[in-house]
């Protein structure tokens, strides 16, 4: 949406070629889903879709911070596992515990992001390796903490965010809390990335760290902040996923790559410098819409995988082509 507004301001008429194609793709997919399954137009249809997409969308928006800063964060999937398992250990089905467990989880997320960032900045280990190590370590830690199987239940107060929908709301009939969380967190991440200095600093260090340093940007601070935002978004995603479906030790697996895929679909440039939070959220919704459509079409899982592989390559190849054209014009 942001790009729309800026473009409207920049040019009197909208230049269609400059709108991020992910929005068109998403719109087309949604039309295709509705044609295949008219029920999707019902509130339960699209609201359930948004509820399920919320964790990935938030995670991808967080991942975007690290991607724009020029790195990768592979540790977020394990972070989700750790949040769900850890919360179940700490709350132990005590509804009152949610009050302090959630802040503890955010603290833990901030710590993990801080460690990722500091290892990259000060030990100069490439983020791919750093977060790979963190992914393995956090996963081991989640298992170690729980002894390999969930040890407790998540109380309903905790599950509220991911599970509950407000019913009987006029017009939209139902409103999942997860959607409210998505909107709120999405707005915060949008504000932070596109309306604050921090966002600009993260863009600058991903674009050219030398320039950024000589211009007075505290490169390490910006980079560490990006990792912290990513980890914190994983905490939110974990709270939503744990809330949606309860405790398990396999929750969150594979989410890191889906998050990166979503960001790439949203036009984020790998290795830094460019990316948009709204487009990334649209990318996450697109990815979920593709999965949903393939499900409705009765496509087996292997086809899903092949399609995911192809769109991943195609999305980047197209971005490169668009960029090439820009440079020539």
């Amino acid at each position, binding site marked *: 949406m942001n790009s729309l507004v800026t473009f409207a301001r920049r040019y009197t008429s909208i230049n269609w070629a400059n709108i991020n194609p992910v929005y068109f793709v998403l719109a087309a997919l949604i039309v295709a889903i509705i044609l295949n399954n008219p029920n999707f137009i019902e509130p339960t249809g699209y609201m359930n879709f948004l509820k399920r997409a919320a964790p990935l969308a938030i995670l991808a928006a967080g991942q975007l911070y690290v991607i724009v800063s020029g790195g990768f964060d592979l540790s977020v999937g394990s972070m989700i596992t750790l949040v769900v398992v850890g919360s179940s250990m700490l709350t132990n089905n005590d509804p009152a515990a949610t009050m302090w467990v959630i802040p503890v989880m955010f603290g833990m997320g901030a710590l993990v992001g801080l460690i990722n960032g500091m290892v*990259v900045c000060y030990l100069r280990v*490439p983020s791919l*390796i750093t977060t*790979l190590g963190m992914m393995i370590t956090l996963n081991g830690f989640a298992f170690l903490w729980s002894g390999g199987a969930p040890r407790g239940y998540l109380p309903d107060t905790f599950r509220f965010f991911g599970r509950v929908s407000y019913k009987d709301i006029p017009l939209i009939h139902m409103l999942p809390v997860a959607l409210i969380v998505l909107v709120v967190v999405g707005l915060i991440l949008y504000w932070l990335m596109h309306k604050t200095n921090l966002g600009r600093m993260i863009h600058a260090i991903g674009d050219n760290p030398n320039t950024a340093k000589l211009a007075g940007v505290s490169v390490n601070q910006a980079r560490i902040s990006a990792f912290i935002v990513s980890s914190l978004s994983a905490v939110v995603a974990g709270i939503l996923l744990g809330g949606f479906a309860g405790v398990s030790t396999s929750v969150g697996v594979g989410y890191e790559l889906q998050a990166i895929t979503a960001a790439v679909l949203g036009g984020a440039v*790998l290795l830094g410098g460019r990316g948009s939070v709204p487009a990334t959220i649209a990318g996450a919704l697109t990815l979920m819409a593709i999965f949903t459509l393939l499900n409705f079409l009765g496509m087996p*899982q292997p086809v899903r995988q092949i399609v995911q592989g192809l769109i*991943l390559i195609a999305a980047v190849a197209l971005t*490169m082509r668009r960029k090439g054209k820009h440079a020539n014009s």
Partner: protein
Amino acid sequence: MNTISLDKPLIKRRPFSFEKWAPALLLLTAIILYVVACIVTGQTQYLTLDNLLAVVGRSIALGITAIGQTFAILVASIDLSVASLISASAVLSSVVMNGNPDMVVPAIVLALILGAVVGLLNGLVITQLKVNPLIATLGMSLIIQGVLSAFVSNFAGSVPEEFQFFAYGSVFGLPFGTVFFFGLAFLAFFILRYTRFGSQIYAVGGNPDAARFAGISTTKMIVSAHIICSICAVIAGLYLASRLRSGAPWIGSDGLYDLESIAVVVIGGTILAGGRGGIWGTVAGMLIFSLVDSFFNIIEIDAFVKQVLRGVIIVAAVAFYSVKSRRAVA
């Protein structure tokens, strides 16, 4: 006309090259750790030659994959599709052989062709469509895995007794798999060190512009490196089919061969930016992985603690080099 790039202070390298010896130092540390663990726990039987060979033999498949991955990383690329390709190769060969010794050669040939095609596609997507190698090979990995699981969901086919020689046979009293691995490592070393092709691999990874100016086709080199990488993955798949007697669509991804092979290469001192590193570092990296695994077994560490430590070790080992470097990281 002037550039200021030369105006910066020059860092002269000492005759003792830290980066050159770092893999050896890390390996030495791992060996010491292993030996001390054996002595402290009183299990000196683990120090016999047979046992040390067994330690080396632990990660043959990982080692073979990592040799290929070294080529990809040396040209400043990376390959995440090796794990799926290992599964595909194991399944394909096992299904084609189907217990029939006459089909061993056709199966191997077919698998190698598969590897060459996958490597070619990876290389072309990266060089022609200009897709970031990480994404290109990740996409390829999903595609291979999808195609594979469309056809099989379990162990499929079987390898004949004769083919099990690859994993279980021995020559000169040494396990054939280990001999083969070192043979392959030596071949790779030879190619990198003693052929024009090897020289150009380094050139393309080190400074693509300089390579192009010297008349080297960077496209050709990147594609070739990916073909080599994929073929090594195929060989690793063949080895696993031989070792497991059959191929299943999960053996590559379950073995974490994609990320672990990258970790092995990086721990071996080859830098992700390309152009620097070598095969013996990768061999050292693979031995470090084996030794650490065996070390964990000897001290009977909890599986989950093991995982935590493994993550820490990978990061620490890489930090061992990188903390001194002045290259930009992200």
